[in-house]
């Protein structure tokens, strides 16, 4: 059985890109996975055209949750808020690669849930889970 723990995942876990905080972020959200104790926080700074100018994540937890959060920050940089809203769970899973069990999917998708919560709060809708009812 091939391991989910590819060199790429481990590299993002050990050397996370875009980890830190943004004091001037307009979008700020945080959530935890009570099952694992994973914590992910996302901060997005937008320019006047609602394009993601800078993004940082913070958190702690397993390699999958932390690597996926870091990968996600690279994906959203330069995108409009509307494009960020459209990122699907498949997009995130393709970044990670490999097969995940149902329980570990929650680790992989925690950062996306946090990101969407922040984005929906920003654009004024409260139902962040609308698009991902099965997992998020």
């Amino acid at each position, binding site marked *: 059985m091939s391991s989910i723990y590819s060199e790429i995942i481990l590299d993002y876990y050990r050397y996370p890109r875009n980890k830190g905080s943004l004091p001037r972020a307009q979008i700020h959200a945080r959530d935890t996975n009570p099952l694992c104790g994973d914590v992910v926080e996302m901060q997005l700074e937008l320019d006047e055209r609602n394009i993601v100018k800078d993004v940082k994540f913070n958190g702690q*937890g*397993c390699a999958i949750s932390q690597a996926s959060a870091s990968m996600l920050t690279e994906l959203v940089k330069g995108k409009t808020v509307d494009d960020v809203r459209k990122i699907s769970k498949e997009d995130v899973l393709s970044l990670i690669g490999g097969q995940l069990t149902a329980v570990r999917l929650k680790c992989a998708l925690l950062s996306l849930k946090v990101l969407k919560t922040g984005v929906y709060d920003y654009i004024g809708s409260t139902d962040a889970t609308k698009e991902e009812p099965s997992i998020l």
Partner: protein
Amino acid sequence: MLRRRWVGASSSTSPKATSHAVAAIASYRKARNRLPGLAVPKSTTPTTKLPLTFPGQLAQSTVRGYATQKQATAYIHGKEPYDVEKVRHDFPILKRIINGKPLAYLDSAATTQKPRDVIDELTRFYNEYNANVHRGVYKISEEATAAYEEARAKIARLINASSPSEIIFVRGTTEAINLVAQSWGRTNIGLGDGIILTEMEHHSNIVPWQLLAKERGAHLKYVGLTDDGHLIHDDFRLHLESGGIKLVTMTHVSNVLGTINPVREYVREAHKQGCPVLVDAAQSVPHIPVDVRDLDCDFLAFSGHKMCGPTGIGVLFAKKTQLEEMPPYHGGGEMIREVHLYESTWKDSPYKFEAGTTNIAGAIGLGKAVDYVSELGLRNIQGHERELTEYAHDRLGKVKGIRIYGPENPGTKAGVISFNLGDVHAHDMATLLDEDGIAVRSGHHCAQPLMERLGVSSTTRASVYLYNNEEEIDRLAESVKRAGRIFKI
């Protein structure tokens, strides 16, 4: 921690059998080492050659009964060593292949696997004598009632309760503790009173007391832990002497560290202050001999599914004197003597606490599980687990970057091994072990205050039971090493 009643019969052949349980284990191991069969190195036993068909006859033809402690003593005195490979044949699930490898089930602290005897008895109940208990006057109802009450009696004998009426069937340890909190607690605990707990409690022995303390205006006091996972006795004494303590509630064996707490001594000290004690025995009754009269605890709670029984059935033991004073926990059918429009009277315990139709099949299945572990003998099980735990400490201790939590001497603890490897998160470790067919637990193990004390967010936990063997520990150690290679520890 002795079961005097059963051991007494064999005391003439070995004075050691009546001494402390630790001494019993020592003599058991010494006896084992003298056996000619054991001169053969363990690694040469055919650990992987499970028969293709399950040898049900083997398990069923042997006598399952209460004179089982005699048999257990026979094991100790060298008639037959503990034959784990024979035990493994009793567990159909151990034949499963996970990710191309045989299942190595090392999560028995969460729930244990079930022997064929228990599974068969559940099927037999539903096929042959399924009926509600205590009410029907027809044949199968009488059979069901007899089996249900027989199970209660078996459990009373297992833990050496004075009478089966001290055994209340509940859903599990959690419900048992909630029953005491809601029934005994709301009667006896008031404003400003104190409850002593320990920092190593499972959430099920914390949250019910938080709810009660909030409602009654009482406060909780925690006994702290040393770095190697033992209770700080002075903490306990200070709390006890501070006055106003109405209850001590503590775990017998830690579900994270495997620490075996000196419950007997704590009970004695608490009783000197007139303070009753509840023991969470979820991790002890299935693994070590437990004698409630020797411990002298007032309440003791455990779950059936952690000792080869079905899920959804557990036990609250309480001293008769306590039960008589306690009001019902749930109201409904079965628990009443007379019901009028505005008031009712209750049956005596245990029925006062068993409202509605209980988990009859579960209780009967648990009775069968008690037969099973009794026949193997709790002291033999403890001895087997201790050897495995020592072996696991030895194998895992050599892995670079590993940290094992809890008592350093594996000879003094139960078969629970919590560890972390470098910066590998416990969930990543568990996923990697699963890839090798090894089932372990990862996370906070429902003991977040303990995790805080240890300064970690989670651990990986391997826990052994009567069916685990050294080969599985070898596989665990190799798989942990593989995780270390992947994460470049």
